[in-house]
């Protein structure tokens, strides 16, 4: 059932891709050319559509049946939210604070509550990487906190 549902989603995606390919703007006269910016995507939409239709009819074998039972969704989704949070926070806090917060929260969420483990790991990795990138490789990273502390 899940196999067919996903195949249906993929088929819908291919139809949408094919539809969007016809909205690609063409240069003057390009529609009369044997090959233009729409040709390859149009061919791909058809290929993808036929293949997803094939999967819908012949779903094939799955090594995990059922595919989504008994999985630890909560911690995995929490980590995904942390990644999103990292992306949203980094422009405001800078590299070091965002990295420290991400690593600490991720390690704690997976069950490591010892301060003497997650704090040194988070600080060590964030600071170490910052110094390698900034000092050794010359990649500028904006970090208000470390700048104030005179690290860079």
């Amino acid at each position: 059932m899940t196999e067919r549902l996903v195949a249906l989603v993929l088929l819908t995606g291919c139809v949408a891709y094919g539809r969007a390919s016809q909205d690609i703007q063409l240069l003057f006269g390009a529609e009369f050319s044997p090959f233009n910016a729409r040709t390859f995507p149009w061919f791909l939409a058809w290929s993808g559509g036929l293949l997803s239709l094939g999967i819908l009819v012949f779903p094939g074998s799955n090594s995990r049946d059922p595919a989504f039972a008994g999985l630890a969704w909560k911690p995995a989704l929490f980590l995904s939210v942390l990644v999103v949070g990292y992306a949203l926070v980094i422009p405001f806090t800078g590299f070091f604070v965002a990295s420290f917060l991400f690593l600490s929260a991720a390690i704690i969420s997976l069950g490591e509550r010892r301060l003497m483990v997650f704090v040194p790991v988070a600080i060590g990795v964030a600071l170490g990487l910052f110094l390698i990138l900034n000092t050794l490789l010359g990649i500028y990273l904006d970090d208000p906190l470390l700048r104030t502390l005179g690290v860079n």
Partner: protein
Amino acid sequence: MIDGILIGLGTAFTPINLMLVMLGCFAGTFIGTLPGLGPITAISLMIPITYGLDPSSSLILMAGVYYGAIFGGSTSAILINAPGVASTVATSFDGYPLAQKGQAGKALAIAAYASFSGGTISAILLLVAAPSLAKLALSFQSPDYFALMLLGLTAVSAFATRGNTLKALFMAVLGLMLASVGQDASTAVARFTFGIPDLMDGLNLLLLAMATFALAEGLLVVLERRKDSADLSGVTSRLGSLKLSREEVREIAPTIGRQSVLGFVIGVLPGAGSTIASFLAYGTERNMASSEKQKEFGQGSIRGLAAPEAANNAACSGSFVPMLTLGIPGSGTTAIMLGALLSYGVSPGPRLFIDNPAVFWSVIISMYIGNFVLLILNLPMIPYISRLVSIPQRVLVPLILYFSIIGVYLVSFSTFDILLMIGIALAAIILRRLDYPMAPLILAFVLGGLMEENLRRSLMLNDGSISFLWQRPLTLAIMLATLAVLAIPLVRVVKTASGR
């Protein structure tokens, strides 16, 4: 050729490149030893480091990581029966029983010697085959390239997962679709950008590789509640002797020789790769053995261990042949390397060894150095590497996630890329759980631009007719090979469905 070898030696033997080979082998072994993490993840995680290096050094580092990851995968296959990558599954058939008999040290040594010999023999074959093929490839035209890319994608899809060819083919098409996002290369018209400026340059290969492999793998470890590999340190404390007797050496030497050649040939074929090479080597070796020796296979046969190890390492070198000479990668791993090279402004292909001889030859020479490094440095360091592997998942997973996202962020400094990455990673997790392979997606993504360009040229020259697919004998031969590769698994799909 002598000039080329000298250029390669000069480049590969610089202190920085020697250090990079060692670093690559060590990092690759470490990551490869972690169950579930293979060469693609290892190389993806290394790409951000390579941006500060010149193309030769970058490729040298990535080649070292590739070898190291394969070797690392063998280590976990032998010690805890948990192959890090599919190509080391066959290694566990006899490696793990040997370890259970208290001969883990011997098993690791056989794996190291077989890998070293396989790598060495194939490096020599590569030295001969690559320039010859590159010269031949200079006569290739657009239709031939298009057909060859079609063959590569079809072969990777056909061999990716047994019984799921349709899914693999769909992933290849999806990779091509993702490659079409951004400005059209020939007309600069925006395609599928939906008015988002971040998509104008298209998707980044590193982003896609990190999202589908490193980030997705890290999340899958949590999702599937995979256990820590902490028991590995216990196994390594009782490794036993690393020495082999003269009889044992005599027994495995011919095996290593023939399976190295077989592995190299399989590796050169687009899509086949080290997994098929290792299983084929194991199978042929068992069939060649006497009935008495055949009984030992699966119980701790040293020939059964040496055969897949020699073959998978030789196949790794073999897979560089189509990438370096034709600019067409034969596997997901070499696809990422090709993508990285393209981003440095180097175009692999038949002109690579004329335009960039330092890149071409130094990679070949560094493969040989990499094999030495693995044998001399990595083998004695296995107990220490195993201890590193014992880092608990609750610390290791956040680090993998962190290095994945920071690797992508450092390239573009765009938070949009991180958000896109997590979206792709979640989609990849769903697809991976349903046995949709990721390697065809990556390969197709890398080849997408080149494929469209060659199709465009071919169609323009033929007034829109697809007769270019059979006009030249070479194109026709490649297309027939593609149809043959496609037909076998599709017939199987229909047969299975009608048998239900």
